[in-house]
């Protein structure tokens, strides 16, 4: 780290800015509301944060808003969480997945073209999973056939968060069927306004429709919008996933820590603040939340110092997902029968809204999406603990 940042000054600056800019009553405004109101709130909030330089503290040195130390990033996240500001869910994929992928694997031309657009409010989605390619991502079948200066895309993607609003898609498609599954994948930056793209939102268990299916019917993508070489898409996709597993979690863990008072308030409201069993669960949980924060911080420091080891990101994501489940489960237990009354849902909800059944159900986002807990356990066991992979050649009734 360079010279010690004047942390108190930055904190005061951010806190003061937030006091004047966080949209008042945004939680109420987002509860039981329509899509348009949600999109407008997100756009206005992004524009304000981005102009202040607080939307991209995780970006590298030399990029707009970037080059912040871990200490500075944490101050910004802590203050944003303390001010109970909305999360930039609509811009999440643009700010993390797209930006980090471009940083690691994009050409200088692509960086010059897309980074300003992202800062300008371009919305991105991720086109990885398919109906028959979830955890087994490499088996995906959406095809990218080279024809002159373009790839022609046909197929279907699913679980694509905010795809219905997106301008661009991080698309992983199959350009070759001949070798091992991973070898035939190509990574493209697809224009969601291109002809042949159809998006169908998916109605979720919470009432929201945060994610969608995307259908591609002879969609053309210029070759210049390919990231990395043809057939090198798997490696590029790992950069995207690593950003999700590691970098995003500093902010999410800080938010979870700031959410602990919500639980305490719920215990008072439910009249169980003297129940020693629940008090102890709260105390034990607070240590776990602190541990999740510490893990996320240490991971980020490793990224900054290029000392990341295989499996590190999986430890952080798995521990966060498990802790978030416990956090929301305790809220659900404390809220009791009253918590089960359906008070509606919040659009684009952060993980800790205090609507506990909603928060509990939403916690599955983190144990399923971006590589499920089970996939993280495989990665951790195989790459960090050195335990062998299961044999691949499974035959019905035959055994290994």
């Amino acid at each position, binding site marked *: 780290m360079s010279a010690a940042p004047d942390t108190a000054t930055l904190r005061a600056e951010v806190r003061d800015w937030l006091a004047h800019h966080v949209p008042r009553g945004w939680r109420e405004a987002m509860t039981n509301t329509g899509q348009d109101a949600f999109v407008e709130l997100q756009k206005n909030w992004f524009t304000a944060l981005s102009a202040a330089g607080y939307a991209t503290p995780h970006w590298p040195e030399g990029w707009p808003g970037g080059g912040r130390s871990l200490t500075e990033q944490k101050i910004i996240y802590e203050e944003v969480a303390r001010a109970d500001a909305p999360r930039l869910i609509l811009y999440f994929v643009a700010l993390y997945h797209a930006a980090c992928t471009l940083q690691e694997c994009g050409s200088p031309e692509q960086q010059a073209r897309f980074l300003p657009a992202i800062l300008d409010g371009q919305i991105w989605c991720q086109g990885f999973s398919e109906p028959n390619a979830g955890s087994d991502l490499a088996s995906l079948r959406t095809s990218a056939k080279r024809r002159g200066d373009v790839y022609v895309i046909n197929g279907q993607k699913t679980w694509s968060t905010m795809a219905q609003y997106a301008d661009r898609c991080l698309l992983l498609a199959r350009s070759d069927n001949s070798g091992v599954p991973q070898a035939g994948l190509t990574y493209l930056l697809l224009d969601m306004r291109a002809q042949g793209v159809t998006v169908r939102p998916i109605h979720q268990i919470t009432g929201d429709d945060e994610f969608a299916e995307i259908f591609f019917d002879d969609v053309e993508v210029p070759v210049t919008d390919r990231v990395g070489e043809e057939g090198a898409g798997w490696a590029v996709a790992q950069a995207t996933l690593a950003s999700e597993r590691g970098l995003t979690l500093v902010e999410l863990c800080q938010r979870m820590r700031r959410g602990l008072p919500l639980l305490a308030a719920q215990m*008072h409201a439910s009249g169980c603040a003297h129940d020693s069993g629940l008090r102890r*669960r*709260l105390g034990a949980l607070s240590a776990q939340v602190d*541990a999740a924060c*510490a893990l996320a911080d240490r991971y980020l420091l490793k990224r900054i110092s290029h000392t990341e080891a295989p499996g590190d990101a999986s430890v952080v994501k798995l521990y966060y997902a498990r802790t978030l489940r416990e956090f929301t489960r305790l809220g659900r237990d404390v809220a009791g029968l009253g918590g089960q009354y359906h008070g509606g849902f919040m659009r684009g909800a952060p993980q800790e809204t205090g609507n506990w059944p909603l928060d509990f159900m939403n916690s599955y986002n983190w144990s399923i999406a971006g590589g499920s807990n089970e996939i993280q356990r495989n990665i951790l066991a195989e790459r960090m603990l*050195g335990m062998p992979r*299961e044999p691949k050649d499974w035959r019905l009734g035959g055994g290994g």
Partner: protein
Amino acid sequence: MLDLLTELEDSADQVLRGMALAPADAKLWPQACELGWLLVTAPEELGGLDLGLAGACALQLALGRYLAGASYLPALLAAEALCASTLPDRQERLARLAAGEDYITCPLVDWRPAAGHGLSGMAMAVPAADRAGQLLVVAPDLVALVPLAAAGVTVTRRATWDSTRDLFEVVLDGVDTNMCSVLARGAQAQALAQRLAVVRDFGLAADAVGGADALLAMTVDYLQTRRQFGRPLAMFQALKHRCADLKADVEAARALLLDNLQRAAAADDAATALLAKGARHLACAVYLQVAEESLQLHGGIGMTAEHPCHLFLKRAMLGEHLGTAPGACAEALAAPLLAAQG
């Protein structure tokens, strides 16, 4: 700071690696004294290394990893108390303690006062009292060194399931405080007692993280070696996933320990006490979880006395009851959250 700690942990690791698991005190203690491990937290002006609590925890991590006896932490607490005292000969006393000439022990749980004249009460979980000259008593309004040979002192060895630690009970029945060296009284004693509880809880957390880490590595090694159904057990996903969860838990407990130690360096007394309790609570819970699972993952061999798996389980079971008890830790951690919202 982290590099220094890693170095310290590694050097302790090298000393311990040459000995069998659960090394005898007689073998380890002379080396520990020679290497200055007891002076790790003492300030330089008293001849110490001034590496702080984090330095002590780095050593305790290694001691936990090799199931070393429990003599180190009491001596460290005694050193801390001597340094905080105003005794004119504290530096000489510290030097004798550090050189292994004058061992002072201390209970690893809170002192239980009893009614009576003089100093009365009971100390449970006192390590190595058989070779100690004095007992550090940390009562709410008095911190004192009590000669174990004084009238009214009874020392009883209490065998525990955990054979890696040699524990005693010491009962004081009306011991004359004029026979003791008083280190602090009143408000100063309270502050010192709080400080000593912090050192104790952090030390126990470090011991647990070290033990959990070593045991998990041993368990994974075993699963790699043992073959059934024509393949190593380590290939079965049902077992891999359990190990992965345990690994995440161990890494979380370690991250919390290091983070809390770092935060404690800049925190006030009340916040520091909470940081120590948080680290101790998670680390001891994780150690027990790893130990319970490891016995199951070892299968039948884990039930045999010749295999070291049970040594870790017994140490983790005892560890759950040392320092601030888990219920009290959890209550203490919840209290400020609830008070702020009440």
